[in-house]
């Protein structure tokens, strides 16, 4: 260190000032948005943000190559953004600039992005497009509702569905039937557990993303089919409370205790690498299971009640939208149309194991051979599933279903909070958010 005390103090002050200033600069925001963009010439470069970068990079690059071959005047710059950080990337770009021309936007984050006035309404373009009448009406309605109900800010690319993945090899060895009902599910979870041998019946999601899964289990067992009863939510209905109590009772009894911090990646990795009987996740993890457990697993829609009633909460529909700030909306729309064409939509969904939004793609052969997708699509389309629509349209939904309540769900798992208190707290927050949202409509 310098031997001059004054110089040393000056150096210390500089280093400290910088460190402290970085503390205060950590939450900067300039609050500007509203660039109206341009239609552009329909030629040149556009930028596309993939909202599930890494996982879907390969198939998007293939689709982009096909598009550029067909549209040699347009170059698409692909940017893959990991699913867990895509919302903050969009928020940062909306406030600070740098939005892409086109981007993947799932229904769960659509309300927050639409509220920031960043997305271009697509109704008029769709009305004049060959895609008109070729997209699943249910999915179109879903993205319209998630965007506030009046305008359509994204076109749906795929739907997902809650799936119970189970290990056929372990079930056969234990002489168990497929866990098609909740009764069979609980019985199998218990029978497959042998903690001394590192065998567990089920893995529960205790970390990030736990709320939607917990609600899926609660509504699935209670049989309640509506999220709202007038202005009040049904999440804390006594039947849901009882169902959730039973579900969280699985923790540590038939699940690894490490599940407490499980997010999607940890949960799926644990199931794919261990000896765990069942996993609840949507169709999106199909490829991961295929790589790790080919021939040893199946995916079926969530269990039914004993009378055959199947109730599930809605999964956010994935979509693709054009940003208002785009300087080349004509080219961006060409890309959107191409991505949702029969061939591209089929290709993308086959890679993801999801249900195509393009009705022609939904009839393709691969859907019939990908069992989990086929069963999910059939269950959704034949009306045997009663879907509880989660309120993705609420600007507060993201925080209520994440940071505000995930710690409380962990408390429930740890026995430090009752399921009733947890659901009552959540219900109070939801009722308040719904009332505020309605007031602004």
């Amino acid at each position: 260190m310098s031997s001059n005390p004054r110089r040393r103090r000056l150096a210390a002050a500089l280093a400290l000032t910088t460190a402290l200033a970085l503390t205060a600069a950590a939450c900067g925001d300039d609050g500007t948005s509203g660039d109206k963009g341009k239609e552009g010439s329909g030629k040149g470069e556009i930028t596309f943000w993939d909202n599930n970068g890494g996982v879907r990079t390969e198939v998007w690059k293939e689709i982009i190559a096909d598009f550029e071959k067909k549209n040699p005047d347009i170059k698409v710059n692909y940017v893959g953004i990991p699913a867990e950080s895509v919302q903050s990337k969009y928020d940062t770009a909306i406030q600070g600039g740098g939005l892409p021309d086109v981007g993947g936007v799932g229904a769960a984050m659509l309300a927050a992005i639409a509220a920031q006035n960043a997305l271009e309404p697509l109704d008029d373009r769709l009305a004049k497009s060959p895609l008109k009448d070729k997209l699943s009406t249910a999915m179109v309605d879903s993205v319209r509702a998630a965007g506030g109900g009046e305008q359509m800010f994204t076109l749906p690319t795929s739907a997902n569905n809650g799936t119970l993945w189970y290990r056929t090899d372990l079930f056969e060895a234990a002489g168990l039937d497929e866990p098609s009902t909740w009764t069979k599910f609980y019985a199998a979870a218990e029978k497959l557990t042998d903690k001394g041998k590192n065998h567990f019946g089920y893995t529960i999601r205790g970390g990030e993303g736990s709320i939607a899964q917990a609600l899926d289990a609660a509504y699935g067992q209670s049989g309640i089919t509506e999220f709202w009863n007038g202005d009040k939510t049904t999440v804390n209905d006594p039947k849901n409370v009882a169902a959730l109590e039973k579900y969280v009772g699985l923790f540590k009894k038939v699940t690894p205790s490490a599940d407490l911090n499980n997010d999607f990646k940890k949960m799926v990795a644990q199931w794919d690498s261990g000896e765990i009987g069942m996993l609840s996740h949507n169709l999106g993890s199909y490829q991961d299971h295929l790589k790790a457990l080919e021939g040893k697993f199946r995916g079926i829609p969530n269990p039914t009640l004993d009378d055959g009633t199947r109730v599930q909460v809605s999964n956010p529909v994935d979509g693709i939208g054009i940003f208002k700030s785009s300087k080349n909306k004509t080219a961006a729309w060409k890309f959107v149309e191409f991505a949702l064409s029969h061939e591209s939509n089929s290709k993308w969904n086959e890679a993801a194991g999801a249900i195509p939004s393009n009705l022609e793609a939904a009839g393709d052969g691969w859907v019939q051979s990908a069992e989990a997708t086929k069963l999910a699509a059939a269950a959704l389309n034949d009306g045997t599933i009663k879907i509880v629509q989660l309120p993705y349209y609420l600007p507060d939904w993201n925080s209520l279903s994440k940071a505000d309540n995930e710690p409380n769900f962990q408390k429930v798992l740890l026995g430090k909070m009752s399921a009733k208190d947890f659901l009552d707290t959540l219900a109070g927050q939801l009722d308040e958010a719904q009332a505020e949202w309605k007031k602004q409509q």
Partner: protein
Amino acid sequence: MARPAAVAKPPPRPRSTRARSATPRRLPYLLIAPAGLLMLGFIAYPVGSVFYYSLQHYNPTKPWRNGFAGLDNFDEIFTSDPLFWDTLVFSAKWVVVEVGLQLLLGLALALIVNQTFAGRALGRALVFSPWAVSGVLTSVIWVLLYNSQTGVTRYLADLGIGEYGTSWLSDTSTVFSAAIVADLWRGVPFFAILILADLQSVSKDLYEAAEVDGAGRLRQFFHITLPHLKDAIVLSTLLRAVWEFNNVDLLYTLTGGGPAGMTTTLPLYVANTSVDAHDFGYASALTTVAFVILLFFSFAYLRLSKFGRNES
């Protein structure tokens, strides 16, 4: 021998008095101007922006609520937000334990690798190597080490120690220690490097004189080494305390702030408030409070430790 007379050079062309005096005066300012402008752009502006938004209700997803808040956000922080106090207490505990242990272990390692022994260069490289590993990679390494299927607890269970399916990060009694150990691995080399650098400048004469006077190793350490290291220790602990207070990446990756919010630091709470809830006004107020706390702590620490004032 007489030197040959130098060939007389013609005198330089006289410049105006104004030019002669102005250029040297302006030159330093011109040279630091680019850095100064960058600092203004990248530090002063964001800091000012945070102060501004701390006095606003600002949530872009709820434009109907936006507007001047006065001191409302601060009122809520201090009177009706238990999470603020919980996360502040946890942040303080995290900083004290982390910085204390990192200093002790860093000092011990620096003293060891300052000795002369075979393989010292390799030893130094090993000690410093975690500091060269990126934060993301560090997080991944420790996530894998603590994983219930591939990590330490799995192998301990194979040996009959503990149960299968456990992770120290999911156990409320071990999560704090487990996170501390992971961050120690990354932080200790910082102290070791700084202290070793300062150890190199201690005059050997002092130790020789102390030995002549009969002082043992321990006495030499407390009366020569430690006083010499004082300023390095004060500055490094202060900087590290600020960094540890602001720790987000490692804890976010390892625990997500859980279980049940047990490892949520104040900056992690700020991140959740801004990123998930989009409540930038309140998050800015929380950040401003954190800034003021760190500012007072830093001045008090420097004053109490008499940093840079013990030169004899």
